[in-house]
């Protein structure tokens, strides 16, 4: 009933290659965008912005970057946190060295720094594969976090070693810093995430995306067919780290407001990896679904017992949260290793048939 595919013929190759061959998918996307741009800003509280909406967007962007590297190109990376850090520190330095620079340009440019570092640490992928590569990316993770702590120039020799976001204005509205309104920051992040997602969808559906998938599935065969492995892997690292770097800059400037070096440590890398995996490796939608789950979970665990009046110590909430995330990961991997995106795909299949049985 919802997904009436009957009557939707394609009469040209272009139409067949469209992003939403079934019109209802396009309607669904329009509905979601309407929710995001109009409904949520009108109804959500400041807490909902800062604790749910903005982090979901930022984490899904970071997971998008990781998914391109791990899901589409098959190069497992555990260093996402450090690359986010590179983006954040690059943005900070750009804005302190050029205070008049527009923040949008600063964030866009900081992605390039992260991409460069990503390519550098991606070079071992030409020789190393699988788990070994994952552990090699940990080298990037640990080294970069150490660098963030030791290289005082990065945080302007601040005594505390932390970077703080000053009040930044754009067209007269404060978009970053302690005076920024949550709703402004939400729109800013939303626009960025939409732009990056559009870019990611196009690149993964195109020639380069197919190149990556070939490398992921069987890289020796891909090489035999004529795909330049070096180019494929390094472009994957470049694009992925660019997106991750931008998400890191957004993370600090448009959400946290300040950062210290160990914010970008392993737990952050793992969190983004969980989002990518639970959401579904090799999908774009999955990142959003995974982020919603992972971000909302602690909030739910914290609120539900209190809503029912059961007193629960905050430390116990923390422990339960950790346990639940672990159990969820295991459950998801057992039940649906392809993640929430596959869940959605199955629901959609059922909806196409519904209410008919077959």
């Amino acid at each position, binding site marked *: 009933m919802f997904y009436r595919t009957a009557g939707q013929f394609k009469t040209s190759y272009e139409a067949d290659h469209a992003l939403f061959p079934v019109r209802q998918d396009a309607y669904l996307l329009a509905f979601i965008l309407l929710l995001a741009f109009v409904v*949520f800003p009108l*109804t*959500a*509280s400041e*807490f*909902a912005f*800062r*604790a*749910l*909406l903005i982090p979901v967007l930022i984490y899904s962007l970071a997971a998008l970057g990781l998914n391109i590297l791990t899901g589409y190109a098959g190069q497992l990376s555990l260093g996402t946190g450090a690359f986010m850090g590179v983006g954040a520190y690059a943005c900070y330095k750009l804005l302190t060295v050029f205070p008049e620079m527009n923040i949008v340009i600063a964030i866009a440019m900081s992605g390039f720094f992260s991409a460069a570092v990503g390519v550098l640490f991606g070079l071992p992928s030409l020789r190393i594969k699988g788990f070994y590569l994952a552990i090699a990316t940990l080298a990037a993770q640990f080294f970069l976090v150490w660098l963030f*702590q030791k290289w005082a120039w990065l945080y302007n020799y601040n*005594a*505390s*070693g*932390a970077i*703080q976001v*000053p*009040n930044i204005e754009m067209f007269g509205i404060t978009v970053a*810093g*302690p*005076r920024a309104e949550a709703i402004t920051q939400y729109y800013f992040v939303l626009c960025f995430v939409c732009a990056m997602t559009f870019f990611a969808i196009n690149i993964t559906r195109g020639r380069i995306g197919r190149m990556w998938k070939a490398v992921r599935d069987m890289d020796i065969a891909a090489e035999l067919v004529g795909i330049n492995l070096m180019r494929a892997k390094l472009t994957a690292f470049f694009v992925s780290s660019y997106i991750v770097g931008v998400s890191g800059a957004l993370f600090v400037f448009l959400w*946290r*407001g*300040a950062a*210290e070096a*160990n*914010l970008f440590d392993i737990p952050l890398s793992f969190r983004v990896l969980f989002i990518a995996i639970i959401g579904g490796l090799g999908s774009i939608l999955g990142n959003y679904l995974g982020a*919603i*789950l992972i971000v*909302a979970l602690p*909030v*739910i665990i*914290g*609120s539900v017992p*209190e*809503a029912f009046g059961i007193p629960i*110590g*905050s*430390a116990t*909430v*923390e*422990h339960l949260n950790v346990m639940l995330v672990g159990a969820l990961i295991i459950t998801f991997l057992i*039940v*649906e290793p392809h993640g*929430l995106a596959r*869940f959605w795909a*199955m*629901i959609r299949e*059922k909806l196409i048939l519904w209410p008919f049985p077959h």
Partner: protein
Amino acid sequence: MKHWIRKAAVSTALVATVMLTGPASAQGDGIYVPNLSYRTGPFASTGTPLMNGQRDYITMLNERDGGLNGTKLVYDECETGYNTEKGVECYEKTKANAVVTQPWSTGITLQVLPKSNVDNIPILAPGYGFSAMADGKVFQWAYNPPSSYWDGAYMILQDISGGDLSTLNGKKIAFLHLDHPFGKEPLPLLEKLSAEHGFELVPIPVGLTEMQNQSAQWLQIRRERPDNVIMWGWGAMNAGAMTEAAKTKYPMDQFYGVWWSGHDGDLKLIGDQGKGYRSISWSVPNSESALMQDIKKHVIDAGKSQINQGEDEFDSVFYQRGVMISLILVEGIRAAQEEFDTQNPNAEQVRWGLENIKLDEARLAELGAEGMLVPFSTSCADHTGHGGGWILEWDGSKFVKASDLLKADRDVIRPLEEEKAKEYAEANSPWPVNEECSM
């Protein structure tokens, strides 16, 4: 299959409902005082007794007196695990009805500091935070009584040098610190004093992942052979340092620690081998005082405490310091109640209250806490109070007071406070400065 679809639908519904709810804060009637505590993680060992102390003082007031002048105080905790990210989340979650916020980590304090102006909630950071918060002109919403880290560093140097800092000329002092805003906080003052008085400062950072395995740092200390080691440690770092110091046989009487590095639990690990270790402290435990006996009667024996009875936590420095911290907070709230003639002061009024605390010896005696806390008073310009501190020395089984009241030299520290405060205000402009006060 249907089972899973149903599950997915339910979870989406749950998420949707949560989206439109606000922060769930435990609210009864009364004055809401949240605490950004940590009972988990590598810093839990040092955090838990302090938070127990804070909690028990407030419980005692509610039990014994029915609250503060009749109004109950609602104590609530939000678990941060000493993680700056979680700390900021906890701050956002609890700020709605709170009259104060207690960040319990210099890292979290620094991140919450710029928000305090916008959200209008006073930050109470007793004995931690940014030392320049003493400048009440710039930091109208931040308080760090009774002594700041710069005071503490100065007082340790005073004790090392026997009162005259110029005798430190030519000495080598190693500064073993946690590689975290907390550990790095006293560096500006230490560097300044090192340049002025001619001693060599060797900063030795300990990363968060190396707290349990400090052999590299202590090998470095062995190589450098400093005259003294000043430790700015917290959590598992203290225990790690103690065991390594005992192992490399570093003379304990040359080993000093800040007030957060003087924890009974850590020293008990090495017991007699730690004899002679000293820690500067602005609180002294006294289990026989009227206040502590009241807490014992109304809270601990009544089973309302989370204290760990088996480990003698009641007598420990940190537990009783936690009690003192709540005492300071309640004094501030009381001052607000009296000044504004209201039973339920709001955050603005409590801010004023914290600015007008007068905890002199007479008042401490009234509260039953004679000699347990350095006397101090805050003012519009001075948000620290600079009460000074005492040296506590480990005698093998407990800490005992080993000096008279030390006070840091205001003339040396004040210019640095003003300078750093000004820098901070400029870096975070527009920053409201209260010109009516002056240091």
